């Protein structure tokens, strides 16, 4: 299995990672090794196995709708590089839609 370099670049871009050419080659290698390893699963005949996202097909735990104490705001801000009046302060984002894409 071999993922083209272009594809690796695209995936890196989506993950906001930037690599130089050497790194790109190195990571392509890693990625392909991983895919080859996982690719072993393709040797199995899964014609009669339903697509499965979890093997724990049991009644997953649900939480009762109750409010628990949140963190104190000072605690929340402790690791923030920048904050103001209880808000996180971040560089302005280009996208102007201000919500879910």
């Amino acid at each position, binding site marked *: 299995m071999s993922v083209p370099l272009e594809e690796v670049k695209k995936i890196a871009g*989506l993950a*906001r990672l930037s690599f130089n050419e050497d790194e790109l080659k190195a990571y392509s290698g890693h990625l392909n090794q991983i895919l080859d390893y996982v690719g072993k699963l393709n040797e199995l005949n899964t014609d009669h196995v339903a697509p499965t*996202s*979890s093997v*724990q*097909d*049991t*009644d*997953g*735990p*649900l*939480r*009762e*709708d*109750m*409010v*628990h104490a*949140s*963190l104190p*705001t000072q605690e*929340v*801000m402790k690791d923030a590089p920048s904050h*103001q*009046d*209880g*808000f*996180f*302060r*971040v*560089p*302005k*984002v*280009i*996208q*102007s*839609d*201000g*919500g*879910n*894409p």
Partner: protein
Amino acid sequence: MKFETVIGLEVHAQLSTLSKMFCGCSIRFGAAPNSQTCPVCLGMPGVLPVTNRTAVEYAVRMGLAVHCDIQPHSVFARKNYFYPDLPKGYQISQYEEPICLGGWIDVEPEPGEKRKIRIHRIHLEEDAGKSVHDEAYISGNETLIDLNRCGTPLIEIVSEPDIRSPKEAYLYLHKIRQMVRWLGICDGNMEEGSLRCDANISLRPVGTTDLGVKTELKNMNSMRGVEKALTFEVKRQTEILSEGGAVIQQTLLWDEAAGKAVPMRGKEEAHDYRYFPDPDLTPLIVEEAWVREVGESLPELPDDRKNRWTADYGLSDYDASVLNEDRGISDYFEDVVRETDNPKTAANWIMGEVLRRLNEEKTGIENLKVRPGDISHLIRLVNEGTVSHSAAKTVFDHIAETGDTPDKAVEKLGLKQVSNASELGDLVQKVIDDNPDALKKYLGGKDALFGFFVGQAMQASRGKANPKVVQDLLREKLNALRQSES
């Protein structure tokens, strides 16, 4: 060439649970920034989400109310993208296997013309945080982030592209808003963002079935805004296509103040969310018994109730719609009707006095001091002749201000209707004696002046006289005078 409009809506409704979708932080609106956050909704490493049972139940409620198939097995998926209001770097949503499939909502663009708008799916997801871009408050190249909203449970209701006009879109959205409020799962406030709507819109030549190139409209903050934005976009696309041009697929933001939709700033990349099942969450299993239980707990739904009212109570379609708009008012009317056999009179009371009063006080029906039993009691007092209709309205306002019982209010205001013929006889005689000119004309043949005498008598009694008794007495006395003249 004539074009047909094709619209599909995506409606997000914030569920009015107490806590967030996957953690116990409160979702109360208006709290200090970032005061309702914890390691789970802040996206700290090593935490695990646990699904809110009530949020699931609310999604099932909505699904059942709009005829969806509730899926016994659905899957939460990660929708991956970077934005500062999304600290995990992904939103937990549902993708390939949502909780509700299929369904429909009926709208009525013209009286008697029913249109079925099919629902494609309803899925559960979490909301993102909020960005503040106020440049008076912060430098132009920075943004403030409040994550209180991050993790608030949402349902997204996705319609099929069945909507054929901006008006239908408005009606469909109106129905959704009415329904979520009716079910008590969302407060439906578009201005505050607890109900949000995005629209996909394209045109195609009438008679064809392939979909044209669509644009996506966002940022509409009211139901009328949705209708206006779509009307704008229909016109824009019609002009482009009529001149032989091509619509560009893009996202447009509605600018309410300018009354136009403008392309979103920033580069438009094809979204690549790389959805995959969230390994932190097991599939969501909704047992049949639970669905049945939720189904049995559903209130009578708005359209069913409306149909029952027009059929059983003889209400007009319009009156039934007005009374049925809001669950609180609708239930109030039901409570009044239960205690009176005069549904139409009850309807008039509510559409007249009750709605007027709520409007004046800018309050909800739950705060009105006049309770349903008071209205049915007032109707009875009028029917029995204890108070006149106009006096009853005065009594109503008195109850609204004091919370007195109707009987007490009537007594306090001294509005008990006088039906005693001997008592009213003197009053009527006085009115005749005090108006010799009118009397002369009446006796001379001007019958229309009868109403004048009735009015004078009612006024003299300060509205307390039983108008029917007054009329009988006047007729008797005036006829006697006419006969003695001739």
